[in-house]
């Protein structure tokens, strides 16, 4: 018995959902960044699956670009976080809440 392609798509969708849910319920920015990585990985899995289904290498090439984007995003995101926390190093529990909606 072989694995049907749709199982991979299903798994990708589930992973994407978990990532999106985590990003919205967690309030720790580090974990929120990790949830973004989960979502991007779900996309990568979906691209690779479609690439195989269509027998088209294009989908695999796209994964490269997603990797670069993920790396650049993480660098800037963590840079923002570090610059916030370095400004007031004494703070341990510090809500980022000067702007209220």
């Amino acid at each position: 018995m072989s694995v049907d392609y749709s199982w991979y798509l299903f798994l990708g969708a589930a992973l994407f959902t978990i990532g999106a849910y985590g990003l919205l319920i967690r309030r720790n920015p580090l974990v929120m960044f990790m949830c973004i990585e989960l979502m991007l990985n779900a996309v990568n899995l979906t691209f690779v699956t479609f690439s195989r289904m269509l027998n088209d290498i294009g989908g695999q090439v796209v994964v490269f670009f997603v990797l670069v984007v993920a790396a650049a995003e993480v660098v800037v995101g963590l840079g923002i976080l570090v610059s916030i926390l370095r400004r007031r190093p004494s703070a341990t529990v510090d809500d980022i809440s000067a702007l209220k909606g």
Partner: protein
Amino acid sequence: MIAGMFAQLGVPTDAPFAVPEVAWSALTPLLILIVGALALLVVTALVPRTLPVGFFTVTTVAVAAGAAVASLGSWDRVTDPDRGPYMAVAGAITLDGFSVLVTALLAITVVLVALLADGYLRREGLGAAEFSVLVLLSASGGVMMALANDLIVMFLGLEVLSIALYVLAGFQGDRRESQESAMKYFLLGAFASAFLLYGIALVYGATGSTNLGEIAGFLARDVPSEQGLLLGGMAMLIVGFGFKIGVVPFQSWVPDVYQGAPTPVTAFMASGVKVAGFAALLRVIVSALSVQAQDWRPVMWVLAMLTLVVGPAMAIVQTDVKRMLAYSSISHAGFILIGVQAASDRGTAGALFYLFAYSFMALGAFGVVSLVARQGDVGVDLDRFRGLSKRRPGLALVFAVFLLGQTGVPLTSGFMAKFSVIGAAVASESYALAMVAMLTSVVGAFAYLRVIVAMYLGDDEEMAEEGTRRVQIPAAAGLALGLALAVTVTLGVLPSTVLDAARDAVPARLSPSR
């Protein structure tokens, strides 16, 4: 030697590898922006002393103006019926009237932002080199989005635009609001990017390509019988773009981020980023997926309706002028969506004209806010504007024109813009939307009129408290406001040139032959 290496690897060396032809003429505006930014970086690193802010302002303005001129230079080429639009670099980008116009608009936006930022950076003591480099690179991302004929190129352009802006939003490292603005913008932006990317993946699965021309060609030939993948992909794309351009219900980050970011950056978000975001939306949804119009039109209708109602309703209760302008930018996104949902060439032209007009009004309005604010970008609540007409009659008059323009008063560009999108909606029989648009622009007018009333009728209490300090207007910012004012009034009185250009600038659908 390389052939030898391939031979060792067992790869046939005569295997055809066609290096795509790079049409440098098509890339000129983009290259001017990127090379200009890199040159600034190198100069800053090599010159031992700190260069003055003025140097960076002049260079940025020159680079961006060069890009605008280079882009408009190819207008005759792409709108010539004999030669027409063309693709470059293996079908990754398209040069048509649309991309030329949007590129030029983005470059002009950068010119005005650089001029506005000049005095701001001096006042706040921020690094002009990094600011200029990031603004230029961010704009280059917007240009990539305008040129893109491939969803991946579009996505990368969006990331170039956004990641530079995350940094710019947090550019004021010693101001807490600025850093929080950057954090929120980053989190929501990355969230939106993930949705967009998932949408791209599903569309790729449903059509077999990421190339917009091939997608349109595939859908025109044989619409898939089972449309689940395609519809899911389109929904995800709309969510992703919806976040980026700030339409209800994806707007919750807009007021916080706009308020917290340094004001010239906010001006760029309201003008350049909206232009690029809508350009991408028009190219992907309206142009490439036009076969599916019956599926996405109702969605756009609902989004436009919500945005038109929520934006002005929230704007009238704000006391902070910068925040009020943020909500007003949401409501303008609703108006532009009216043009999008019309799903016609007329609607696209209307949306383009609206973007053109709104960009200058937003740049002008946020420019005035950045001048009126005290150091540290604080004090832009309504009280600060009270009696401005007595302290600075010229500035108050200019601000009043920008606000009236956003209201849609005749003889300003805002009137022509609203007229053109509502006209497109009526032409495609969206009467309810047209009615709501007219009603909510009346509601929204209260928010703007409150500021105008405060400027002209308010007492000058703030003035007495602060002693004799007047609002300073640096020459560069004055020039930027003058330009924005000139465009706003000119487009209101003589709109025909830009209207005609927008009509000729409908996205072309080209497909690479593979």
